[in-house]
């Protein structure tokens, strides 16, 4: 049990050990390390509620569904713009964007737009811009934002020139055909939304969502589909 905890919180364990050692052998250094940390903790606590509110407001009011329908090959500049918006308003690390982009590709989104979504998802998320401006200054943030925007557009078009749709692997089948539901744990960011929305089917294990039982098509209730839809990384697969 304790070993498992240490495994899932490697970094926390490491930091604790380092500080404990430092306190014993170099208490003076430890004190200055604490003082440095205190400063950053204070700054971080000040900016956290802002990032939280921005994430919540975007989540509540931006119609992501409508945006995703307009990203096809013929979508042109409007499609590019919507891709920038979609990437910028999302939450989570870049690998969380992979399954979502995969789904968009299947729905017909162009490679250009997929590159724009992935890149802007990575570097120009709105809540993070607030964070960047706080720690590095508004000038720094604004200049980097503009340069990044131009770069992403250039990258998207170069990629489209080199990579064609047939180069993308799209084998998307369950390993076992009798299994209807599956969680791709590599995509799971452990947010716990599924366990809250559908506690009958999902549980958390080692900070990852897991299926308690795999229902058949008949057994599956509305609950599980609500969870699938609300999974922020679309990690829950339904092969129906």
């Amino acid at each position, binding site marked *: 049990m304790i070993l498992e905890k240490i495994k899932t919180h490697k970094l926390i364990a490491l*930091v604790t050990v380092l500080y404990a050692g430092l306190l014993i052998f170099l208490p003076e250094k430890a004190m200055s390390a604490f003082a440095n940390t205190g400063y950053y903790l204070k700054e971080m606590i000040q900016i956290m509620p802002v990032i939280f509110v921005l994430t*919540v407001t975007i*989540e509540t009011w931006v119609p992501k569904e409508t945006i995703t329908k307009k990203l096809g090959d013929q979508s042109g500049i409007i499609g590019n713009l919507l891709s920038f918006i979609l990437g910028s308003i999302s939450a989570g690390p870049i690998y969380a964007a992979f399954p979502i982009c995969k789904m968009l590709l299947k729905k017909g989104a162009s490679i250009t737009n997929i590159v724009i979504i992935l890149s802007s998802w990575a570097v120009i998320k709105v809540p993070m811009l607030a964070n960047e401006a706080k*720690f590095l200054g508004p000038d720094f943030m604004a200049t980097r934002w503009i340069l990044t925007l131009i770069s992403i557009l250039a990258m998207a078009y170069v*990629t489209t020139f080199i990579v064609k749709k047939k180069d993308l692997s799209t084998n998307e089948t369950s390993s076992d055909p009798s299994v209807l539901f599956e969680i791709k744990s590599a995509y799971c960011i452990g*947010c716990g939304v599924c366990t809250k929305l559908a506690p009958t089917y999902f549980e958390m294990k080692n900070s990852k969502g897991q299926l308690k039982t795999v229902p058949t098509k008949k057994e599956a209730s509305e609950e599980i589909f609500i969870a699938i839809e609300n999974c922020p990384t679309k990690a829950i697969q339904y092969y129906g």
Partner: protein
Amino acid sequence: MDLFTKILWGISIILIVISLKKDANKTKDSMKKSRSMMKNMIGEIIAILFMIGLILAFIPADTVERLLGGSNLILSTIAAAIIGSVTLIPAFVAFPLVGSFVNIGASIVPAVAFLTTLTMVGVVTFPLEKQTFGLKFTLVRNGLSFLFALIIALGMGVFL
């Protein structure tokens, strides 16, 4: 609290009040979702902040200035871009980390290269990306991202 943070707080309070007024239930649902996502990150964030404190206590400012201060800009920028590519820490804590290095004398050019490759180039997530999109797409996207991270960094050096 500095003026900039105060302004952000003002905007946030207005936003959340409007959102709650327009649709309290929908807002509360999103709050629950965002809260559980953040709760999972918080331990790691705090741990990394303590790491920053530790690093700053041990690395003297003049070493940072000598290595990253702009005397060997090209080398330090490429090194920063490579380190950013192989590191996987949340962007969330990357800003205070980079900010602390800039404050004690690092040039912004390697700083920007690090920030950009950190989030855009993923060596650790490469297998996952390859599995999702195929090898060619993944190579091209990561390669271009690395190249453009350097361009963005140099651009920052010119403009700021």
